[in-house]
């Protein structure tokens, strides 16, 4: 069973629909004391970084998620959910993130159109079980900020003016900057592979 963290930040419905299509049992969860019911957690999200952190803190999920990952349990962050894994975001001033992965969230340099909206090719940088049987790699991005982070934690990047870290991983924490639930068959395959890799 997978728990999808529901903290009032965006389109959870599509992620649930994608998991249902893959026949993966899932539930929405926002209560800290319920987290242990799940084998793995997903942290989705669209919108502003600061609002997201405030919402997580209100529910006590900030500390709970740190604790969760300290135990080595699997966590997948999607879009804003992934950005929250980092130490600091520069969106509207500086906001502290969960600090699970070293690095900062910065605005995409303005020599390209912002937001970065559309289907971008993924370039795989480091091998990982989530790339198993992946035929091609176009995935759907919608964001204006990106992670500035250590290279060795980047599994795949998407060139868009700068190299946008698209899939990142540290131990049992995986983040996707794009929307796998909106990325056609490629996105579904990535979700499926992640679920298999964490045995959820």
């Amino acid at each position, binding site marked *: 069973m997978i728990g999808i963290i529901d903290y009032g930040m*965006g*389109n959870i*419905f*599509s992620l649930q*629909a*994608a998991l*249902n*299509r893959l026949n993966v049992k899932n539930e929405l969860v926002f209560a800290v004391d319920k987290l242990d019911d799940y084998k793995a957690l997903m942290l989705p999200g*669209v*919108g*502003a970084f600061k609002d997201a952190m405030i919402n997580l803190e209100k529910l006590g999920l900030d500390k709970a998620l740190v604790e969760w990952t300290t135990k080595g349990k699997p966590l997948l962050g999607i879009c804003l959910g992934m950005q929250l894994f980092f130490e600091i975001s520069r969106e509207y001033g500086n906001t502290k993130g969960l600090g699970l992965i070293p690095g900062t969230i910065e605005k995409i340099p*303005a020599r*390209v*159109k*912002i*937001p*970065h*909206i*559309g*289907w*971008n*090719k993924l*370039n795989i940088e480091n091998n990982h079980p989530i790339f198993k049987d992946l*035929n*091609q790699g*176009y995935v*759907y991005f*919608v*964001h*204006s900020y990106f992670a500035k982070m250590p290279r060795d934690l980047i599994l795949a990047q*998407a*060139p*868009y*003016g700068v190299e946008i870290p698209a899939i990142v991983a540290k131990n049992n924490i995986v983040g996707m900057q794009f*929307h796998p*639930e*909106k*990325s*056609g*068959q*490629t*996105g*579904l395959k990535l979700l499926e592979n992640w679920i298999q890799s964490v045995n959820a």
Partner: protein
Amino acid sequence: SMLTKRIIPCLDVKEGRVVKGTSFVELKDAGDPVELASLYDAEGADELVFLDISASFEGRKTMLEIVKKTAETITIPFTVGGGINSLEDIKNVLRAGADKVSLNTAAVKNPELIKEAAEKFGNQCIVVAIDAKYNAQKDMYEVYTHGGRNIADFDVIEWAKKVESLGAGEILLTSMDQDGHKEGYDLKLLDLVCSNVSIPVIASGGAGKKEDFYDAFTKTNTDACLAASIFHYQETTIKKIKEYLKNEGVMIRWE
């Protein structure tokens, strides 16, 4: 950049049925929006737009049901436009599973709505639709509202820059002159808007053949091409158009 150009079919929905595309006779259900959305997804569409042209409250309620079913069914993002007037309307459509909303008349009447919506829901989900028409006497493109019935008192460049500064994530730019004529997109209009804003621009109005997509993508800085009727005929498919673009060296998503 390895960002691909997007092809976006547009479905006009009235009282729960697709109203354009009368020649869809060979499909199981000619006018079912969810079925068509699913077909376009399978054919390689990069996104979809639903334009709700329902005249009744019941029709709008039905639209939310369609949005929900579509979100359960397709694997690509989709936008809902038509009759969205308030933050409440936006919330309802996004909650039902749409990825973006498109604002038109309501944004012209109350530009602050763009700002409030972008702040509340994120600018990535706020598309502003601009209907523009060339005025030869003044040599400028004027903005129209209410489906082309009323004229706004500013030109397209002014308005495009304003919606960008208010936080719109994308502009859906329709040429009223080209719309329905199948003689190609209005390249002059596209170029004008693309060179004055730094957010993505979606071209709309005038697609009649595959070369029209090529022209928009190679002669202007357009990010996506929207089309309605061209996809509703069996002789042209999204796949064929994308194959042509790919062979001509345009970056597109190909599965």
